[in-house]
Protein backbone atom coordinates (compact mmCIF):
# COMPACT_ATOMS: atom_id res chain seq x y z
CA UNK A 1 0.00 0.00 0.00
CA UNK A 2 2.67 2.51 1.01
CA UNK A 3 4.85 1.44 -1.88
CA UNK A 4 2.02 1.77 -4.34
CA UNK A 5 1.16 5.17 -2.97
CA UNK A 6 4.78 6.26 -3.29
CA UNK A 7 5.04 4.98 -6.85
CA UNK A 8 1.85 6.71 -7.85
CA UNK A 9 3.07 10.01 -6.43
CA UNK A 10 6.43 9.55 -8.08
CA UNK A 11 4.75 8.89 -11.41
CA UNK A 12 2.74 12.06 -10.98
CA UNK A 13 5.91 14.03 -10.27
CA UNK A 14 7.48 12.74 -13.46
CA UNK A 15 4.38 13.59 -15.42
CA UNK A 16 4.56 17.18 -14.19
CA UNK A 17 8.17 17.51 -15.24
CA UNK A 18 7.42 15.93 -18.59
CA UNK A 19 4.51 18.24 -19.36
CA UNK A 20 6.39 21.34 -18.31
CA UNK A 21 9.43 20.34 -20.35
CA UNK A 22 7.18 19.87 -23.36
CA UNK A 23 5.61 23.32 -22.91
CA UNK A 24 9.00 24.88 -22.22
CA UNK A 25 10.50 23.33 -25.31
CA UNK A 26 7.55 24.39 -27.44
CA UNK A 27 7.77 27.91 -26.05
CA UNK A 28 11.44 27.94 -26.98
CA UNK A 29 10.63 27.18 -30.58
CA UNK A 30 8.02 29.92 -30.74
CA UNK A 31 9.62 32.87 -28.97
CA UNK A 32 12.10 34.80 -31.05
CA UNK A 33 14.51 33.25 -33.42
CA UNK A 34 17.72 31.64 -32.16
CA UNK A 35 19.59 32.59 -35.30
CA UNK A 36 18.77 36.28 -34.93
CA UNK A 37 19.45 36.07 -31.20
CA UNK A 38 22.99 34.94 -31.94
CA UNK A 39 23.83 36.77 -35.17
CA UNK A 40 21.84 39.98 -34.88
CA UNK A 41 20.07 41.75 -37.70
CA UNK A 42 22.91 42.44 -40.11
CA UNK A 43 23.92 38.84 -40.89
CA UNK A 44 23.73 37.60 -44.44
CA UNK A 45 21.25 34.92 -45.34
CA UNK A 46 24.11 32.48 -45.99
CA UNK A 47 25.44 32.94 -42.46
CA UNK A 48 21.91 32.43 -41.14
CA UNK A 49 21.48 29.20 -43.05
CA UNK A 50 24.84 27.92 -41.76
CA UNK A 51 23.88 28.59 -38.18
CA UNK A 52 20.48 26.95 -38.61
CA UNK A 53 22.36 23.96 -39.88
CA UNK A 54 24.86 24.02 -37.04
CA UNK A 55 22.14 24.32 -34.39
CA UNK A 56 20.21 21.61 -36.27
CA UNK A 57 17.06 23.69 -36.12
CA UNK A 58 15.53 22.07 -39.18
CA UNK A 59 15.30 18.58 -37.68
CA UNK A 60 11.79 17.31 -36.96
CA UNK A 61 10.24 18.44 -33.69
CA UNK A 62 10.34 15.00 -32.09
CA UNK A 63 14.02 14.56 -32.91
CA UNK A 64 14.93 17.92 -31.40
CA UNK A 65 12.87 17.23 -28.29
CA UNK A 66 14.43 13.79 -27.85
CA UNK A 67 17.89 15.30 -28.19
CA UNK A 68 16.98 17.97 -25.67
CA UNK A 69 15.80 15.39 -23.14
CA UNK A 70 18.79 13.13 -23.69
CA UNK A 71 21.17 16.03 -23.03
CA UNK A 72 19.12 17.41 -20.16
CA UNK A 73 19.18 14.23 -18.09
CA UNK A 74 22.95 14.44 -18.22
CA UNK A 75 22.76 17.99 -16.91
CA UNK A 76 23.59 19.49 -20.29
CA UNK A 77 21.17 22.23 -21.24
CA UNK A 78 23.28 23.57 -24.07
CA UNK A 79 24.96 26.96 -24.41
CA UNK A 80 23.35 30.23 -23.43
CA UNK A 81 23.01 32.31 -26.62
CA UNK A 82 23.62 35.45 -24.67
CA UNK A 83 26.45 34.49 -22.32
CA UNK A 84 28.05 31.96 -24.68
CA UNK A 85 28.60 29.68 -21.71
CA UNK A 86 26.99 26.41 -20.66
CA UNK A 87 23.51 27.03 -19.28
CA UNK A 88 24.20 24.72 -16.35
CA UNK A 89 27.02 27.05 -15.22
CA UNK A 90 24.91 30.16 -15.65
CA UNK A 91 22.18 28.62 -13.52
CA UNK A 92 24.52 27.20 -10.91
CA UNK A 93 26.02 30.59 -10.12
CA UNK A 94 22.55 32.12 -9.77
CA UNK A 95 21.20 29.55 -7.34
CA UNK A 96 22.78 30.90 -4.10
CA UNK A 97 21.19 34.34 -4.51
CA UNK A 98 17.69 32.98 -5.01
CA UNK A 99 18.08 30.28 -2.37
CA UNK A 100 19.23 32.76 0.28
CA UNK A 101 16.40 35.15 -0.54
CA UNK A 102 13.69 32.48 -0.56
CA UNK A 103 14.91 30.69 2.55
CA UNK A 104 15.25 33.93 4.51
CA UNK A 105 11.73 34.87 3.51
CA UNK A 106 10.53 31.38 4.42
CA UNK A 107 12.07 31.57 7.88
CA UNK A 108 10.59 35.02 8.42
CA UNK A 109 7.14 34.01 7.24
CA UNK A 110 6.99 30.80 9.28
CA UNK A 111 8.78 32.32 12.27
CA UNK A 112 6.30 35.17 12.53
CA UNK A 113 3.26 33.59 10.90
CA UNK A 114 3.02 30.43 13.04
CA UNK A 115 3.11 32.14 16.46
CA UNK A 116 0.63 34.76 15.24
CA UNK A 117 -1.72 32.07 13.98
CA UNK A 118 -1.48 30.11 17.22
CA UNK A 119 -2.20 33.04 19.52
CA UNK A 120 -4.98 34.24 17.26
CA UNK A 121 -6.59 30.82 17.55
CA UNK A 122 -6.18 30.43 21.30
CA UNK A 123 -7.37 33.90 22.21
CA UNK A 124 -9.86 34.08 19.39
CA UNK A 125 -12.39 35.97 21.46
CA UNK A 126 -10.07 38.88 22.24
CA UNK A 127 -10.24 42.18 20.42
CA UNK A 128 -6.60 42.03 19.37
CA UNK A 129 -6.99 38.62 17.78
CA UNK A 130 -9.70 39.97 15.51
CA UNK A 131 -7.57 43.03 14.83
CA UNK A 132 -4.76 40.65 13.92
CA UNK A 133 -7.02 38.82 11.51
CA UNK A 134 -8.16 42.05 9.88
CA UNK A 135 -4.51 43.02 9.62
CA UNK A 136 -3.76 39.70 8.00
CA UNK A 137 -6.35 40.37 5.30
CA UNK A 138 -4.53 43.59 4.52
CA UNK A 139 -1.26 41.63 4.47
CA UNK A 140 -2.61 39.03 2.07
CA UNK A 141 -3.79 41.84 -0.19
CA UNK A 142 -0.36 43.41 -0.65
CA UNK A 143 1.24 42.46 -3.96
CA UNK A 144 4.93 41.72 -3.44
CA UNK A 145 6.17 44.02 -6.16
CA UNK A 146 4.13 46.97 -4.94
CA UNK A 147 5.48 46.49 -1.42
CA UNK A 148 8.96 46.38 -2.90
CA UNK A 149 8.47 49.54 -4.96
CA UNK A 150 6.94 51.50 -2.09
CA UNK A 151 9.76 50.36 0.20
CA UNK A 152 12.34 51.53 -2.31
CA UNK A 153 10.53 54.83 -2.56
CA UNK A 154 10.47 55.23 1.22
CA UNK A 155 13.76 53.74 2.38
CA UNK A 156 16.06 54.29 -0.58
CA UNK A 157 14.82 57.29 -2.53
CA UNK A 158 13.39 59.39 0.30
CA UNK A 159 15.34 58.35 3.39
CA UNK A 160 18.44 56.86 1.79
CA UNK A 161 18.78 54.18 4.46
CA UNK A 162 18.84 50.95 2.48
CA UNK A 163 20.34 49.94 -0.86
CA UNK A 164 17.73 49.57 -3.57
CA UNK A 165 19.35 46.95 -5.70
CA UNK A 166 21.61 43.90 -5.81
CA UNK A 167 22.81 41.73 -2.95
CA UNK A 168 25.84 43.66 -1.73
CA UNK A 169 29.23 42.03 -1.23
CA UNK A 170 29.43 38.27 -1.21
CA UNK A 171 32.03 35.84 0.09
CA UNK A 172 32.66 32.34 -1.15
CA UNK A 173 32.15 29.54 1.34
CA UNK A 174 33.05 26.22 -0.20
CA UNK A 175 32.04 27.39 -3.64
CA UNK A 176 28.77 28.91 -2.42
CA UNK A 177 28.66 32.68 -2.90
CA UNK A 178 26.89 33.92 0.19
CA UNK A 179 25.73 37.41 1.03
CA UNK A 180 24.80 36.46 4.58
CA UNK A 181 28.25 37.03 6.01
CA UNK A 182 28.85 40.62 4.98
CA UNK A 183 27.26 43.78 6.33
CA UNK A 184 26.34 45.06 2.88
CA UNK A 185 24.97 41.66 1.95
CA UNK A 186 22.69 41.65 4.99
CA UNK A 187 21.44 45.22 4.50
CA UNK A 188 20.74 44.45 0.85
CA UNK A 189 18.71 41.42 1.90
CA UNK A 190 16.36 43.34 4.21
CA UNK A 191 13.97 44.92 1.72
CA UNK A 192 13.72 42.02 -0.77
CA UNK A 193 13.15 39.49 2.02
CA UNK A 194 10.57 41.68 3.74
CA UNK A 195 8.60 42.37 0.59
CA UNK A 196 8.64 38.68 -0.23
CA UNK A 197 7.59 37.72 3.30
CA UNK A 198 4.88 40.30 4.07
CA UNK A 199 1.97 38.60 2.35
CA UNK A 200 3.31 35.17 3.28
CA UNK A 201 3.36 35.99 7.00
CA UNK A 202 -0.30 36.90 6.76
CA UNK A 203 -1.10 33.79 4.76
CA UNK A 204 0.71 31.47 7.16
CA UNK A 205 -0.96 33.10 10.17
CA UNK A 206 -4.40 32.61 8.62
CA UNK A 207 -3.76 28.99 7.68
CA UNK A 208 -2.29 28.08 11.05
CA UNK A 209 -5.16 29.78 12.87
CA UNK A 210 -7.72 27.88 10.84
CA UNK A 211 -5.99 24.54 11.43
CA UNK A 212 -5.57 25.24 15.11
CA UNK A 213 -9.25 26.12 15.49
CA UNK A 214 -10.11 22.88 13.78
CA UNK A 215 -7.96 20.93 16.24
CA UNK A 216 -9.34 22.79 19.23
CA UNK A 217 -12.80 21.70 18.21
CA UNK A 218 -11.83 18.02 18.16
CA UNK A 219 -13.07 15.54 20.73
CA UNK A 220 -9.75 14.70 22.32
CA UNK A 221 -9.15 18.32 23.21
CA UNK A 222 -12.53 18.48 24.86
CA UNK A 223 -11.74 15.29 26.74
CA UNK A 224 -8.44 16.74 27.84
CA UNK A 225 -10.23 19.82 29.08
CA UNK A 226 -12.83 17.65 30.77
CA UNK A 227 -10.03 15.77 32.51
CA UNK A 228 -9.10 19.08 34.04
CA UNK A 229 -5.81 19.71 32.25
CA UNK A 230 -4.62 23.25 32.34
CA UNK A 231 -5.24 25.40 29.26
CA UNK A 232 -1.56 25.82 28.58
CA UNK A 233 -0.98 22.07 28.49
CA UNK A 234 -4.00 21.57 26.29
CA UNK A 235 -2.95 24.28 23.88
CA UNK A 236 0.72 23.57 23.52
CA UNK A 237 1.09 19.89 24.30
CA UNK A 238 -1.98 18.59 22.50
CA UNK A 239 -3.35 21.15 20.12
CA UNK A 240 -0.16 22.59 18.69
CA UNK A 241 1.35 19.17 18.14
CA UNK A 242 -1.64 18.16 16.09
CA UNK A 243 -1.38 21.34 14.11
CA UNK A 244 2.16 20.50 13.05
CA UNK A 245 0.97 18.23 10.28
CA UNK A 246 -0.86 20.94 8.38
CA UNK A 247 2.11 23.20 8.98
CA UNK A 248 4.27 20.78 7.01
CA UNK A 249 1.92 21.19 4.09
CA UNK A 250 1.83 24.94 4.54
CA UNK A 251 5.63 25.10 4.43
CA UNK A 252 5.67 23.07 1.24
CA UNK A 253 3.17 25.37 -0.42
CA UNK A 254 5.11 28.35 0.89
CA UNK A 255 8.31 27.31 -0.84
CA UNK A 256 6.38 27.16 -4.08
CA UNK A 257 4.90 30.62 -3.62
CA UNK A 258 8.20 32.05 -2.51
CA UNK A 259 10.06 30.82 -5.55
CA UNK A 260 7.32 32.08 -7.88
CA UNK A 261 7.23 35.50 -6.27
CA UNK A 262 10.99 35.62 -5.92
CA UNK A 263 10.99 36.08 -9.70
CA UNK A 264 9.06 39.31 -9.21
CA UNK A 265 10.95 40.56 -6.18
CA UNK A 266 14.26 39.90 -7.91
CA UNK A 267 13.07 42.02 -10.81
CA UNK A 268 12.13 44.91 -8.50
CA UNK A 269 15.44 44.84 -6.64
CA UNK A 270 17.64 43.55 -9.47
CA UNK A 271 18.60 40.70 -7.20
CA UNK A 272 21.08 38.62 -9.22
CA UNK A 273 19.22 35.32 -8.92
CA UNK A 274 17.32 32.88 -11.09
CA UNK A 275 14.33 35.21 -11.48
CA UNK A 276 16.23 38.08 -13.11
CA UNK A 277 18.08 35.52 -15.19
CA UNK A 278 14.80 34.04 -16.41
CA UNK A 279 13.20 37.39 -17.17
CA UNK A 280 16.16 38.73 -19.08
CA UNK A 281 16.37 35.42 -20.97
CA UNK A 282 12.73 35.97 -21.92
CA UNK A 283 13.39 39.44 -23.31
CA UNK A 284 16.56 38.29 -25.07
CA UNK A 285 15.07 35.07 -26.38
CA UNK A 286 17.85 33.06 -24.76
CA UNK A 287 15.96 29.84 -25.36
CA UNK A 288 18.28 27.31 -23.66
CA UNK A 289 18.17 29.35 -20.45
CA UNK A 290 14.37 29.69 -20.55
CA UNK A 291 13.86 25.99 -21.09
CA UNK A 292 16.36 24.94 -18.44
CA UNK A 293 14.87 27.30 -15.87
CA UNK A 294 11.35 26.01 -16.42
CA UNK A 295 12.40 22.38 -16.25
CA UNK A 296 14.38 23.08 -13.10
CA UNK A 297 11.40 24.81 -11.49
CA UNK A 298 9.13 21.91 -12.45
CA UNK A 299 11.58 19.45 -10.85
CA UNK A 300 11.73 21.59 -7.73
CA UNK A 301 7.97 21.73 -7.36
CA UNK A 302 7.50 18.06 -8.14
CA UNK A 303 10.07 17.18 -5.47
CA UNK A 304 8.56 19.48 -2.86
CA UNK A 305 5.12 18.05 -3.45
CA UNK A 306 6.39 14.51 -3.33
CA UNK A 307 8.20 15.10 -0.05
CA UNK A 308 5.23 16.88 1.51
CA UNK A 309 2.85 14.12 0.46
CA UNK A 310 5.11 11.43 1.83
CA UNK A 311 5.66 13.19 5.14
CA UNK A 312 1.95 13.62 5.41
CA UNK A 313 1.30 9.98 4.67
CA UNK A 314 3.94 8.82 7.13
CA UNK A 315 2.65 11.05 9.88
CA UNK A 316 -1.01 10.32 9.38
CA UNK A 317 -1.89 6.83 8.14
CA UNK A 318 -5.48 7.87 7.44
CA UNK A 319 -4.31 9.96 4.51
CA UNK A 320 -3.13 6.90 2.66
CA UNK A 321 -6.51 5.32 2.90
CA UNK A 322 -8.52 8.31 1.84
CA UNK A 323 -6.23 9.63 -0.86
CA UNK A 324 -4.31 6.64 -2.17
Amino acid at each position, binding site marked *: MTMLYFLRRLGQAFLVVFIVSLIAFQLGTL*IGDPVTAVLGLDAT*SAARADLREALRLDDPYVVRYARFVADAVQGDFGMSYRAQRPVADVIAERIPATAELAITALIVSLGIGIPLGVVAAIWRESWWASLLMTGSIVGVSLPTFVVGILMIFAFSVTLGWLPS*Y*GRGATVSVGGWETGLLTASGLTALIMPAVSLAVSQVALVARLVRAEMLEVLRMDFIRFARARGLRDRVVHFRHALRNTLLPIITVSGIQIGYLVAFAVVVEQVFQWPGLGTMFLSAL*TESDIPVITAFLVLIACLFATINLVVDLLYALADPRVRLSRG
Partner: protein
Amino acid sequence: MTRAEYTAIGSAPTRLAALLSGEVDLITDLPLQDIQRVEAADGFRVVSGPLRLFMELEMDGTRDVALATYDKAGNPLDSNPFKDLRVRQAIALAIDNEAIVERVMRGQANALTMPSAPGFYGYPADMEKSPEVDYDRAKELLAEAGYPDGFATTLNCPLERYVNAEEICRASASLLARIGIDVTVNAMVWPEFAKMLVNGPDSSFHLIGAAGNSGDVQDTFAAVLHTREEDSGLGGQNWALWSSPEFDAVFEELVSTFEPEERDALYREGLQIARDQQHAVYLHQPYITWAVADRVEADVRADSAVVLHAVTVDE
Protein backbone atom coordinates in the same frame (compact mmCIF):
# COMPACT_ATOMS: atom_id res chain seq x y z
CA MET B 1 44.63 52.27 -11.74
CA THR B 2 45.08 48.57 -12.28
CA ARG B 3 41.68 47.12 -12.90
CA ALA B 4 38.21 48.02 -14.01
CA GLU B 5 35.09 46.03 -13.48
CA TYR B 6 32.18 45.87 -15.88
CA THR B 7 28.93 45.01 -14.13
CA ALA B 8 25.73 44.26 -15.99
CA ILE B 9 22.80 45.96 -14.29
CA GLY B 10 19.76 45.41 -16.45
CA SER B 11 17.33 47.85 -14.95
CA ALA B 12 17.92 51.55 -15.48
CA PRO B 13 16.67 52.81 -12.10
CA THR B 14 18.91 50.40 -10.25
CA ARG B 15 21.85 51.32 -12.45
CA LEU B 16 21.40 54.91 -11.34
CA ALA B 17 21.05 53.87 -7.72
CA ALA B 18 24.34 52.00 -8.00
CA LEU B 19 26.09 55.11 -9.27
CA LEU B 20 24.64 57.45 -6.68
CA SER B 21 25.47 55.06 -3.84
CA GLY B 22 29.08 54.99 -5.02
CA GLU B 23 29.10 51.33 -5.96
CA VAL B 24 30.03 52.10 -9.55
CA ASP B 25 31.72 55.13 -11.10
CA LEU B 26 30.24 55.13 -14.58
CA ILE B 27 26.90 53.99 -15.88
CA THR B 28 25.71 53.82 -19.45
CA ASP B 29 22.25 54.57 -20.84
CA LEU B 30 21.17 56.93 -18.10
CA PRO B 31 17.38 57.25 -18.35
CA LEU B 32 16.60 60.72 -19.67
CA GLN B 33 14.23 61.48 -16.82
CA ASP B 34 17.12 61.05 -14.39
CA ILE B 35 19.52 63.54 -15.98
CA GLN B 36 18.36 66.40 -13.75
CA ARG B 37 18.77 64.28 -10.68
CA VAL B 38 22.35 63.36 -11.55
CA GLU B 39 23.25 66.94 -12.32
CA ALA B 40 21.73 68.08 -9.08
CA ALA B 41 23.62 65.44 -7.10
CA ASP B 42 26.95 66.42 -5.64
CA GLY B 43 29.93 64.72 -7.22
CA PHE B 44 28.28 63.37 -10.36
CA ARG B 45 27.71 64.63 -13.86
CA VAL B 46 26.24 63.59 -17.16
CA VAL B 47 28.37 62.99 -20.24
CA SER B 48 26.56 62.82 -23.52
CA GLY B 49 27.16 62.91 -27.23
CA PRO B 50 25.38 61.95 -30.42
CA LEU B 51 25.04 58.27 -31.17
CA ARG B 52 25.78 57.12 -34.70
CA LEU B 53 22.23 56.09 -35.36
CA PHE B 54 19.07 57.72 -36.61
CA MET B 55 15.55 56.82 -35.60
CA GLU B 56 12.92 56.53 -38.28
CA LEU B 57 9.42 55.27 -38.87
CA GLU B 58 9.67 52.88 -41.79
CA MET B 59 6.72 52.37 -44.11
CA ASP B 60 6.10 49.47 -46.43
CA GLY B 61 7.26 50.51 -49.89
CA THR B 62 6.57 47.27 -51.75
CA ARG B 63 3.47 45.32 -50.80
CA ASP B 64 0.25 45.98 -52.70
CA VAL B 65 -1.81 45.35 -49.58
CA ALA B 66 -0.43 46.67 -46.32
CA LEU B 67 -0.29 44.35 -43.31
CA ALA B 68 -2.54 44.99 -40.30
CA THR B 69 -4.05 48.09 -41.91
CA TYR B 70 -7.78 48.79 -41.90
CA ASP B 71 -10.36 51.33 -42.89
CA LYS B 72 -12.07 53.30 -40.16
CA ALA B 73 -14.80 50.67 -39.86
CA GLY B 74 -12.21 48.02 -39.10
CA ASN B 75 -12.27 46.17 -42.43
CA PRO B 76 -8.87 45.26 -43.86
CA LEU B 77 -7.76 47.63 -46.61
CA ASP B 78 -7.21 46.13 -50.03
CA SER B 79 -4.50 48.67 -50.75
CA ASN B 80 -1.20 49.83 -49.29
CA PRO B 81 -1.53 53.48 -48.33
CA PHE B 82 2.17 53.62 -47.40
CA LYS B 83 3.15 53.04 -51.00
CA ASP B 84 1.58 56.36 -51.93
CA LEU B 85 4.06 59.22 -51.70
CA ARG B 86 1.31 61.61 -50.59
CA VAL B 87 0.45 59.40 -47.60
CA ARG B 88 4.09 59.14 -46.61
CA GLN B 89 4.44 62.92 -46.85
CA ALA B 90 1.25 63.40 -44.85
CA ILE B 91 2.61 61.21 -42.08
CA ALA B 92 5.89 63.11 -42.09
CA LEU B 93 4.01 66.41 -41.86
CA ALA B 94 2.03 65.20 -38.86
CA ILE B 95 5.00 63.88 -36.91
CA ASP B 96 6.40 66.76 -34.95
CA ASN B 97 10.05 65.69 -34.53
CA GLU B 98 10.96 68.74 -32.54
CA ALA B 99 8.21 68.13 -30.00
CA ILE B 100 9.39 64.52 -29.68
CA VAL B 101 12.97 65.65 -29.22
CA GLU B 102 12.03 68.23 -26.65
CA ARG B 103 9.45 66.29 -24.61
CA VAL B 104 10.07 62.58 -25.17
CA MET B 105 13.84 62.80 -25.58
CA ARG B 106 14.14 65.74 -23.15
CA GLY B 107 16.41 67.53 -25.57
CA GLN B 108 18.86 64.62 -25.74
CA ALA B 109 18.60 64.19 -29.53
CA ASN B 110 18.95 66.04 -32.84
CA ALA B 111 15.84 66.33 -34.99
CA LEU B 112 16.51 65.08 -38.53
CA THR B 113 14.99 65.40 -41.98
CA MET B 114 17.08 62.86 -43.89
CA PRO B 115 18.46 59.37 -43.41
CA SER B 116 21.80 60.38 -41.98
CA ALA B 117 23.05 62.30 -38.99
CA PRO B 118 25.98 64.26 -37.58
CA GLY B 119 28.91 61.92 -37.04
CA PHE B 120 28.31 59.84 -40.18
CA TYR B 121 31.15 60.14 -42.63
CA GLY B 122 29.88 62.17 -45.56
CA TYR B 123 26.93 63.75 -43.74
CA PRO B 124 26.18 67.08 -45.45
CA ALA B 125 25.20 69.24 -42.48
CA ASP B 126 24.08 72.16 -44.64
CA MET B 127 21.37 70.01 -46.25
CA GLU B 128 19.49 69.73 -42.96
CA LYS B 129 16.40 71.90 -42.74
CA SER B 130 14.01 72.59 -39.96
CA PRO B 131 11.29 69.97 -39.76
CA GLU B 132 7.91 70.99 -41.05
CA VAL B 133 4.62 70.31 -39.28
CA ASP B 134 1.36 71.06 -41.07
CA TYR B 135 -1.75 69.14 -40.08
CA ASP B 136 -4.04 70.80 -42.65
CA ARG B 137 -1.70 70.08 -45.52
CA ALA B 138 -1.30 66.52 -44.24
CA LYS B 139 -5.07 66.00 -44.28
CA GLU B 140 -5.26 67.41 -47.80
CA LEU B 141 -2.58 65.01 -48.95
CA LEU B 142 -4.42 62.07 -47.38
CA ALA B 143 -7.62 63.13 -49.13
CA GLU B 144 -5.81 63.43 -52.46
CA ALA B 145 -4.44 59.94 -51.96
CA GLY B 146 -7.95 58.61 -51.49
CA TYR B 147 -8.09 58.45 -47.68
CA PRO B 148 -10.13 61.52 -46.75
CA ASP B 149 -11.16 59.93 -43.44
CA GLY B 150 -7.75 58.49 -42.78
CA PHE B 151 -7.26 54.82 -41.96
CA ALA B 152 -6.18 52.56 -39.10
CA THR B 153 -2.89 50.77 -38.88
CA THR B 154 -0.45 49.05 -36.56
CA LEU B 155 2.90 50.51 -35.59
CA ASN B 156 5.30 47.75 -34.59
CA CYS B 157 7.56 49.00 -31.90
CA PRO B 158 10.62 47.46 -30.26
CA LEU B 159 10.94 47.78 -26.49
CA GLU B 160 14.10 48.85 -24.71
CA ARG B 161 16.55 48.59 -27.62
CA TYR B 162 16.49 52.33 -28.30
CA VAL B 163 16.15 55.22 -25.90
CA ASN B 164 12.47 55.69 -25.01
CA ALA B 165 11.37 53.69 -28.04
CA GLU B 166 7.92 52.92 -26.73
CA GLU B 167 7.32 56.54 -25.75
CA ILE B 168 8.32 57.64 -29.26
CA CYS B 169 5.82 55.20 -30.75
CA ARG B 170 3.04 56.32 -28.46
CA ALA B 171 3.78 59.98 -29.15
CA SER B 172 3.75 59.26 -32.90
CA ALA B 173 0.39 57.55 -32.49
CA SER B 174 -1.13 60.60 -30.81
CA LEU B 175 0.34 62.94 -33.42
CA LEU B 176 -1.03 60.81 -36.28
CA ALA B 177 -4.45 60.70 -34.62
CA ARG B 178 -4.73 64.40 -35.38
CA ILE B 179 -4.84 63.73 -39.13
CA GLY B 180 -7.22 60.80 -38.80
CA ILE B 181 -4.74 57.91 -38.87
CA ASP B 182 -5.55 55.60 -35.96
CA VAL B 183 -2.39 53.88 -34.88
CA THR B 184 -2.29 50.86 -32.59
CA VAL B 185 1.16 50.60 -31.06
CA ASN B 186 2.22 46.95 -31.03
CA ALA B 187 5.09 46.86 -28.58
CA MET B 188 7.37 43.82 -28.72
CA VAL B 189 10.44 42.65 -26.91
CA TRP B 190 13.47 42.91 -29.15
CA PRO B 191 13.81 39.20 -30.11
CA GLU B 192 10.19 39.15 -31.15
CA PHE B 193 10.69 42.34 -33.14
CA ALA B 194 13.90 41.09 -34.74
CA LYS B 195 12.22 37.82 -35.66
CA MET B 196 9.43 39.78 -37.30
CA LEU B 197 11.93 41.78 -39.37
CA VAL B 198 13.97 38.81 -40.45
CA ASN B 199 10.85 36.84 -41.43
CA GLY B 200 9.72 39.08 -44.20
CA PRO B 201 9.72 41.72 -42.64
CA ASP B 202 6.20 41.00 -41.44
CA SER B 203 5.55 44.66 -40.87
CA SER B 204 4.19 47.54 -42.88
CA PHE B 205 4.92 50.24 -40.32
CA HIS B 206 7.56 50.18 -37.61
CA LEU B 207 10.02 52.22 -35.61
CA ILE B 208 13.67 51.38 -35.96
CA GLY B 209 17.10 52.83 -35.41
CA ALA B 210 19.12 52.62 -38.62
CA ALA B 211 22.82 53.08 -39.21
CA GLY B 212 24.50 50.72 -41.62
CA ASN B 213 27.64 49.18 -40.26
CA SER B 214 30.70 51.39 -40.38
CA GLY B 215 29.23 54.85 -40.00
CA ASP B 216 29.79 55.96 -43.58
CA VAL B 217 26.84 57.34 -45.54
CA GLN B 218 27.70 54.90 -48.30
CA ASP B 219 27.17 52.09 -45.85
CA THR B 220 23.75 53.39 -44.92
CA PHE B 221 22.92 53.54 -48.62
CA ALA B 222 24.04 49.97 -49.18
CA ALA B 223 22.40 48.38 -46.17
CA VAL B 224 19.32 50.45 -45.43
CA LEU B 225 18.25 52.25 -48.61
CA HIS B 226 19.24 50.11 -51.56
CA THR B 227 16.66 47.77 -53.08
CA ARG B 228 16.82 44.40 -51.37
CA GLU B 229 18.88 41.92 -53.32
CA GLU B 230 19.24 38.42 -52.00
CA ASP B 231 22.46 37.60 -53.91
CA SER B 232 24.58 40.71 -53.42
CA GLY B 233 23.37 41.26 -49.86
CA LEU B 234 22.54 44.87 -50.75
CA GLY B 235 19.55 46.28 -48.89
CA GLY B 236 20.10 43.70 -46.15
CA GLN B 237 18.63 46.07 -43.56
CA ASN B 238 16.09 47.68 -45.87
CA TRP B 239 13.20 46.68 -43.62
CA ALA B 240 11.02 49.34 -45.28
CA LEU B 241 11.18 47.33 -48.51
CA TRP B 242 11.72 50.68 -50.20
CA SER B 243 12.91 50.51 -53.77
CA SER B 244 13.93 53.35 -56.03
CA PRO B 245 15.74 52.61 -59.28
CA GLU B 246 16.83 56.22 -59.37
CA PHE B 247 18.46 55.87 -55.95
CA ASP B 248 20.05 52.52 -56.81
CA ALA B 249 21.65 54.15 -59.86
CA VAL B 250 23.20 56.82 -57.66
CA PHE B 251 24.55 54.11 -55.40
CA GLU B 252 26.12 52.14 -58.28
CA GLU B 253 27.83 55.30 -59.39
CA LEU B 254 29.02 56.07 -55.86
CA VAL B 255 30.68 52.69 -55.52
CA SER B 256 32.84 53.31 -58.56
CA THR B 257 33.64 56.94 -57.79
CA PHE B 258 36.78 57.87 -55.89
CA GLU B 259 37.08 61.59 -56.36
CA PRO B 260 36.02 63.11 -52.97
CA GLU B 261 34.06 66.00 -54.47
CA GLU B 262 32.14 63.77 -56.84
CA ARG B 263 31.39 61.40 -54.03
CA ASP B 264 30.13 64.25 -51.90
CA ALA B 265 27.77 65.26 -54.70
CA LEU B 266 26.50 61.68 -54.97
CA TYR B 267 25.91 61.47 -51.19
CA ARG B 268 23.79 64.61 -51.49
CA GLU B 269 21.95 63.31 -54.49
CA GLY B 270 21.12 60.02 -52.78
CA LEU B 271 19.97 61.69 -49.57
CA GLN B 272 17.89 64.17 -51.59
CA ILE B 273 16.13 61.33 -53.41
CA ALA B 274 15.38 59.54 -50.14
CA ARG B 275 14.04 62.75 -48.65
CA ASP B 276 11.94 63.66 -51.71
CA GLN B 277 10.50 60.17 -51.88
CA GLN B 278 10.01 60.22 -48.11
CA HIS B 279 11.54 56.76 -47.89
CA ALA B 280 10.79 56.89 -44.16
CA VAL B 281 9.75 59.44 -41.58
CA TYR B 282 13.03 60.66 -40.14
CA LEU B 283 12.78 61.42 -36.46
CA HIS B 284 16.01 62.16 -34.66
CA GLN B 285 19.49 61.12 -33.71
CA PRO B 286 19.54 60.08 -30.04
CA TYR B 287 22.38 60.98 -27.69
CA ILE B 288 24.29 58.53 -25.64
CA THR B 289 23.98 59.53 -22.01
CA TRP B 290 26.34 58.32 -19.38
CA ALA B 291 26.47 59.39 -15.80
CA VAL B 292 29.85 59.43 -14.12
CA ALA B 293 31.37 60.26 -10.79
CA ASP B 294 33.34 63.52 -10.89
CA ARG B 295 36.67 61.74 -10.56
CA VAL B 296 36.04 59.96 -13.83
CA GLU B 297 36.99 61.55 -17.11
CA ALA B 298 35.22 59.90 -20.03
CA ASP B 299 34.33 60.66 -23.61
CA VAL B 300 31.33 58.98 -25.12
CA ARG B 301 31.89 57.18 -28.38
CA ALA B 302 29.37 57.29 -31.16
CA ASP B 303 29.09 53.50 -31.17
CA SER B 304 28.23 53.61 -27.44
CA ALA B 305 30.96 51.19 -26.38
CA VAL B 306 32.74 51.87 -23.10
CA VAL B 307 36.41 51.64 -24.02
CA LEU B 308 38.88 51.95 -21.21
CA HIS B 309 41.50 54.06 -22.91
CA ALA B 310 38.86 56.77 -23.28
CA VAL B 311 38.23 56.74 -19.54
CA THR B 312 40.53 58.07 -16.85
CA VAL B 313 40.00 58.04 -13.13
CA ASP B 314 41.57 60.39 -10.60
CA GLU B 315 42.84 58.34 -7.74
